[in-house]
């Protein structure tokens, strides 16, 4: 941390090259992981239901996502006659882009040293960190609502309307739950949140109420079971993407699984110590140099994958909520608990500080 960080003014070409390399590497890791988590979803579902799951394409079905993607490209791209064409075509893109842009502020590991320059392992280490995440990830709801509206059909319309109410409601809880963390870190920068956990305790233990609310809200924000009402198969056929086909249909899935990765990463960063490994301090990571970066990188992705597995596990464990239950849980239960958590954190911190 004490080393000077590479800036644009020092060496513009090296700076741009390093940033482009980071963007290409991290987005590809995340996109490949989200493709593989589609496969993992099917494999884990199969395992939990005592089936085999996809096992024909490649060893153990590992190439299934690649085969699916190829097939999506060559399928007929239907634009039905009754839709609003411009919005219908734009909606999948709008659903996909915010999930990718949020990746900018996720810290993947401790800073890396290349050619004597320190490069932070985060695409943009913004001082507004978490606010950037909430601002951009909430744009994803536009994609879903516009898809429902532009489709001009019964089930997508209902799915889109439900999605808007659900996602904006749980955004309030999402924002409220993590306020306590920033009261103790005194910074919104996500790397500061991690370094404070590396030397201290994980916020999962010091902010357990916030952790539970954040996890529930993360499930609701990504439209996953038990809160997948916008695309409830048994009621709405496929919800907001009923009228979509070919790659446009797949883009909703890439967006959804990337958003799942983003929320797994946020849980890891905010509550599970990010790249922290138990019994290691910031000084240990710095002493190990680039090996420390590699270890931190692995630790971070292990936490993300564990939480992605949790997503799938919950899907096959808990039945779907009814819409009024979903809204009551959010507004009447989680919201007051989150507010009490903020006040409690204030009292405890004030008491410890004085």
């Amino acid at each position, binding site marked *: 941390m004490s080393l000077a960080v590479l800036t644009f003014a020092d060496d513009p070409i090296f700076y741009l090259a390093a940033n482009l390399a980071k963007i290409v590497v991290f987005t590809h890791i995340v996109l490949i992981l989200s493709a593989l988590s589609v496969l993992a979803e099917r494999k884990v579902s199969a395992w939990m239901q005592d089936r085999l799951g996809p096992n024909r394409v490649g060893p153990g079905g590992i190439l299934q996502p690649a085969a699916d993607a190829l097939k999506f*490209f060559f399928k007929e791209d239907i634009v*039905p006659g009754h839709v609003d064409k411009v919005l219908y075509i734009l909606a999948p893109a709008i659903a996909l882009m915010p999930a990718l842009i949020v990746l900018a502020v996720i810290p993947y590991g401790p800073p890396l040293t290349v050619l004597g320059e320190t490069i932070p392992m985060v695409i943009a280490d913004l001082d507004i960190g978490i606010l950037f995440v909430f601002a951009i990830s909430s744009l994803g709801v536009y994609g879903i609502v516009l898809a429902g509206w532009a489709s001009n*059909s019964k089930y997508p319309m209902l799915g889109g309307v439900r999605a808007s109410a659900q996602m904006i409601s749980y955004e309030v809880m999402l924002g409220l739950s993590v306020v306590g963390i920033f009261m103790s870190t005194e910074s919104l920068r996500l790397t500061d949140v991690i370094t404070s956990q590396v030397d201290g305790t994980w916020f999962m233990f010091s902010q357990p109420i916030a952790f539970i609310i954040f996890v529930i809200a993360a499930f609701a924000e990504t439209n996953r079971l038990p809160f997948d009402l916008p695309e409830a198969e048994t009621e709405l056929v496929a919800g907001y993407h009923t009228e979509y086909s070919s790659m446009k249909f797949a883009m909703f899935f890439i967006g959804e699984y990337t958003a799942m990765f983003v929320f797994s990463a946020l849980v890891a960063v905010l509550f599970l110590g990010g790249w922290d490994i138990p019994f290691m301090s910031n000084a240990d990571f710095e002493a190990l140099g680039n090996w420390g970066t590699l270890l931190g990188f692995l630790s971070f992705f292990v936490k993300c994958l564990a939480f992605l597995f949790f997503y799938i596990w919950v899907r096959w464990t808990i039945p779907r909520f009814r819409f009024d239950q979903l809204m009551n849980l959010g507004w009447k239960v989680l919201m007051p608990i989150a507010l009490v958590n903020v006040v409690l954190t204030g009292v405890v911190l*004030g008491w410890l500080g004085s």
Partner: protein
Amino acid sequence: MPEQAINDYIPVLLLTGFAVSFAAFNLVASWLLGKKALTNPAKDSPFECGMVPFHTERRRFSVRFYVVAMLFILFDIEVVFLYPWAVKFQALGAFGFAEMLVFLGVLIIGWWYVIKKGALDWSSSRRHTLRRSA
């Protein structure tokens, strides 16, 4: 701090460019590569389990969705107010905490009013129509 802004936001712009081009690539590639087939009235109609739809689906929907949207704006802005305070919480000390308690108290009163008014009751309209039809 223009230099700080360059350092912080150039990568965000680059990533935005990547995201836009990735989305555009997917749309264009599937349009170019996809199978072209003749269309027919059944394919062109909304998904409807075999029935012929006879009206547009852009009809009125429950007012509750608007109410939730309005409440979201109120409460989300209040959440955003909490963030600058949270960052400066330890510097502001007891006075800052007391002020925020007053703010949260007002927020809770508003929330209680909303609950009592039934603005967030999703099942009451059903009860109401049942009573009226009986």
